[in-house]
């Protein structure tokens, strides 16, 4: 605490924590937000974490934090750190335990009037079709070889099994296959933890939401979004597989730490050079988890489409259920960026932050190259969600990154104490939001009061130039693990 007094306001929504504020900082910290966000982050100790990340070997430009910053493990949530791939490090903690946790949005040509009448039936089908959290087995029982193929080849392997659509591939980062995946770098234990979890939602803040597009701005039409449209949002990650890979490589890198002579302010920031054996192995395993996470969301998408087909007695293609996009908000990626006028190849860690590339970037699929990358921001349960688009300014300021959601403001225990699950369910239903969950106490933990207002976060991202609003959605039904 107390770093705020060292912070200098550089712009309306840009604050800098200068080098020297904390020992070992190699670059400044930069936090995007207003004074209130900075104050809260300071009370939370998250600013110390921004300064800690600035100590990572090979970090360039700045240790960044998006406006949804809050206290995390080692890295703050909302943190973005880019390291030079030649001399810098990769840190599993900078990606997080839920590797490639992310969000996707599935469109439809249905209007709310059409869906409202059959919402209960649709939810019944969704609830039956999409396995949720702990103790529920996934619908896909894959052999060891099949798991390896998914990890290596990503979503196209799932599509080859008849799950998901070919045309979904271009609406995912890396075309649904993160390069460099090597299942031999994944432990037996990680395999076991991921084994029956392909196509399961998971619990905690993971959810499936039926939403209605409420307001659209420029570019919405180009993205196929219209007011009154029903869309479905999925928030899930790499499940036990990713959690175990992160745990495994934290151990591997801890054991190697003294060999590289790194002094780190927090054990959770453990890292290894990108080019070292430990670094390369981690990245090969991380890629497996990233592919697994995209497959997980793709399988869920497939069952969502089936639920719509069963409810509306029409094919999902006829119902316009194409994928808008799939974003990951916990990942490290090799990207080219300009740093002080020089083009560099960087390992960009995003821990609770979303890639937000502008029109023209070669990484974008053809359909979005003239529009810019869709960024999907889930609200907390019961509040609005957003589709944003990447900007040129974000490329200059934040390595093409923006926020990932609202960010907690109340602890789980406090939320549980303050709000009862049943009462929350009633309250949401009074607002026209149907809730399906197996665990009402888990519901209370994710109550809207426990989160920052996502609309404020999105406005600040826009004010800072990190992304622009395209559409706002309101939830009509929530399914939670």
């Amino acid at each position, binding site marked *: 605490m107390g770093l705020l007094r060292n912070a200098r306001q550089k712009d309306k929504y840009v604050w800098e924590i200068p080098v020297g504020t904390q020992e070992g900082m190699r670059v400044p910290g930069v936090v995007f937000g207003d004074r209130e966000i900075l104050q809260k982050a300071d009370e939370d100790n998250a600013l110390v974490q921004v300064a800690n990340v600035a100590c990572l070997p090979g970090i360039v430009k700045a240790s960044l934090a998006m406006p949804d910053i*809050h206290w995390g493990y080692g890295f703050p949530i909302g943190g973005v750190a880019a390291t030079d791939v030649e001399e810098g490090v990769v840190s599993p903690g900078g990606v*997080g*335990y839920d590797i490639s946790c992310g969000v996707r949005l599935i469109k439809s040509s249905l209007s709310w009037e059409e869906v409202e009448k059959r919402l209960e039936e649709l939810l019944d089908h969704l609830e039956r079709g999409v396995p949720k959290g702990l103790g529920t087995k996934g619908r896909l029982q894959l052999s060891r070889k099949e798991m390896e193929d998914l990890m290596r080849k990503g979503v196209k392997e799932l599509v080859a099994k008849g799950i998901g659509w070919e045309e979904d591939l271009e609406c995912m980062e890396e075309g649904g296959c993160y390069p460099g995946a090597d299942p031999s770098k994944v432990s037996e234990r990680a395999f076991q*933890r991921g084994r029956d979890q392909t196509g399961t939602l*998971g619990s905690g803040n993971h959810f499936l939401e039926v939403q209605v597009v409420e307001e659209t701005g420029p570019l919405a039409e180009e993205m196929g979004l219209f007011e009154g449209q029903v869309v479905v949002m999925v928030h899930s990650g790499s499940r036990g597989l990713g959690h175990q890979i992160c745990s495994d490589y934290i151990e591997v890198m801890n054991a190697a730490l003294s060999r590289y002579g790194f002094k780190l302010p927090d054990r959770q920031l453990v890292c290894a050079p990108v080019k070292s054996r430990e670094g390369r192995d981690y990245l090969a395993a991380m890629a497996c988890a990233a592919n697994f996470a995209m497959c997980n969301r793709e399988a869920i998408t497939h069952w969502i489409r089936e639920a719509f087909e069963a409810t509306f007695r029409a094919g999902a293609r006829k119902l316009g259920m194409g994928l808008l996009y799939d974003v990951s908000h916990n990942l490290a990626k090799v990207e080219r960026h300009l740093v002080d006028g020089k083009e560099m190849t960087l390992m960009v860690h995003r821990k609770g932050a979303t890639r937000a590339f502008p029109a023209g970037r070669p990484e974008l699929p053809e359909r979005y190259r003239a529009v810019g990358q869709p960024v999907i921001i889930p609200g907390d349960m019961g509040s609005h969600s957003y589709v944003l688009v990447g900007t040129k300014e974000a490329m200059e300021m934040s390595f093409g990154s923006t926020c990932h959601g609202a960010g907690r403001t109340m602890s789980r225990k406090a939320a549980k104490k303050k709000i009862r699950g049943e009462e929350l369910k009633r309250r949401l239903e009074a607002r026209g939001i149907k809730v399906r969950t197996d665990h009402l106490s888990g519901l209370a*933990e994710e109550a809207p009061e426990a989160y920052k207002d996502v609309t404020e976060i999105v406005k600040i991202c826009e004010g800072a130039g990190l992304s622009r609003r395209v559409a706002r959605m309101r939830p009509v039904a929530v399914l939670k693990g």
Partner: protein
Amino acid sequence: MPETPDFEILDHTADVGVRAWGKGPAEALRNASLGMLQLIYDPSTVKINESREIEAVGRDWPSLLVAFLQEVLYLVEVEGWAIKDLEVVEVSEYRARARLQGEDLDPERHLVSGEIKAPTYHMIKFERDYDHWIAQVYFDV
């Protein structure tokens, strides 16, 4: 009858942890495990039908704590097992072995309320403190 576990749930804005105490490292490990399990389901609803053994290795005390909790978590998540209680039968800085009692996990009967992704090294502690041992760990949930 084993002693009532001595632990408290640590609760910060975005995360949750456990601080447990014990007369020695074995008891602190047991209490930290029971604290963690309480975050996943309600151990008081679990019956004892079966017992199992786990073993964990570490490079130092904190890493042993992390490894041990990972083993416990694995039983729950992968083996689908609900643990009622455990006894750490052998412990050194590098190795711990425990016997656990419980039954097959039934999400409804055992009141499953959430998942734990992993124990982390964030602000971790597993050390002697005056005349007792303290085990503190935060979880990614």
